[in-house]
């Protein structure tokens, strides 16, 4: 049974990845958190304040199997936010303790300003790197007290810094958008942020923004598998009410 499900899922992923590559219209659904980004940048423009953006501790490296993908998703959304900031003349400050992500961050922000026809807008001083979690937190809290950013965007692999940054953003009244696939930090992001991307939504949002056909194709494949799971759950629940265990025995084969 497990082998069957593995083969079916690989076939579905491959089928939709090929279709997405051939230009079939596959897109992620609209996420309130992503739809709120223009509002966050607009708010910064009105108040003449900067935007604070961070992708969290992510265990300090891109090469971490659990946090690497989350940090990369946060950086690809950073490109989208930087373009909006350049268009509205708003300054964006990026904070990170991940040393091996710096080349990618610089490249992402530089291309974003270039694509907005504003290459001189890019300034490496807007990228703030600190060696470890505590210096990164202290620098971020100091920045928030001094600059009082209008919006605080936290998307990536977070650890307990989500509590500290979320609270600091709250006390200066910033509009906050959060997102992570680390379950242990989601409660704090939901409690302190106005909008939150939960678990896989972070990857779907970044794939949509980056227009990555492979990821979008496999997301469609995942959704089809979710329909299979939903059908099994629905039918199984009704059979359960009727005290009939045939489906359970089939699944146990």
């Amino acid at each position: 049974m497990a082998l069957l499900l593995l083969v079916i899922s690989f076939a579905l992923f491959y089928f939709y990845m090929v279709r997405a590559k051939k230009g079939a219209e596959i897109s992620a659904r609209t996420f309130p958190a992503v739809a709120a980004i223009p509002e966050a940048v607009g708010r910064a423009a009105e108040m003449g304040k900067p935007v604070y953006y961070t992708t969290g501790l992510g265990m300090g490296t891109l090469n971490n199997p659990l946090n690497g993908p989350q940090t990369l998703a946060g950086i690809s959304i950073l490109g989208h936010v930087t373009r909006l900031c350049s268009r509205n003349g708003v300054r964006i400050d990026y904070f990170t303790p991940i040393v091996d992500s710096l080349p990618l961050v610089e490249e992402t922000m530089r291309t974003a300003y270039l694509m907005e026809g504003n290459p001189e807008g890019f300034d490496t001083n807007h990228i703030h790197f600190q060696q470890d979690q505590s210096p990164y937190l202290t620098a971020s809290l100091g920045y928030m007290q001094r600059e009082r950013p209008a919006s605080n965007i936290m998307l990536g692999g977070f650890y307990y810094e989500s509590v500290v940054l979320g609270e600091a953003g709250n006390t200066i009244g910033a509009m906050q958008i959060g997102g992570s696939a680390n379950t242990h930090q989601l409660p704090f992001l939901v409690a302190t942020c106005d909008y939150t991307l939960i678990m896989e939504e972070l990857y779907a949002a970044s794939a949509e923004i980056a227009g990555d056909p492979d990821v979008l194709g496999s997301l469609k494949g995942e959704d089809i598998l979710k329909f299979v799971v939903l059908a099994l759950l629905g039918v199984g629940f009704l059979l359960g009410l009727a005290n009939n265990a045939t489906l359970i025995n089939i699944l146990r084969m």
Partner: protein
Amino acid sequence: MSEVYKRELVFLVAGLVAAVMIVTYFLDIPVLNGLAQQLQVWALIIQLMAIGLGAINLVRVNYRHMQQKTEGLWIFSAWFMVLFAIMLLLGLVGLSTGSENAIYSWVFANVYTSLSSTLYAITGFYIFSAAYRAFRARNIDAAILLIGGVFVILANAPVGAVIWKGFPIIGGWFNISGQVPAMRTFTITGALGLLAYGFRTLLGKESGFYGEAGQ
């Protein structure tokens, strides 16, 4: 074509190793089982040998701070280099003589143990101040989250039962049933996400962990 050994061959190696593991999980082929176990021993050796990477990176960053005399940091970096060298030497002496060096084990048992628990527990402070200043029922989501959270807090703390019989009952129900739909959905959708991520890795579509970072 010259780039093949830098990318495509690497993905082929990763894909073949993964394929061996998948096949041996489902089918019992002695020859393949032997190969799978050999590869698993190799993976263990490689991972054990990679510990130096983190250390070299740390030494490099701190050395740069010392060189540039970065204001407010270089003294600590110097202290890091000195202490790191001493502890490493004491440890190596212990390894070579077969019996742990007395100072090394004293520092390990007292300095390391206290700092490790203390630094990790600092989050207890933050959660308390955040509870007061940030955890507000600003929308329905946050309201449900906080109500569920308070019931579980008062079910976990023995005093909850003393205040009102209902807390351990309702909180206990949250702990054993109320949170199950969410946790089960995270488990299922997380597993499907891993299947997709694994499949993209097999096809060489995922390259973040090769240090190519998103190219």
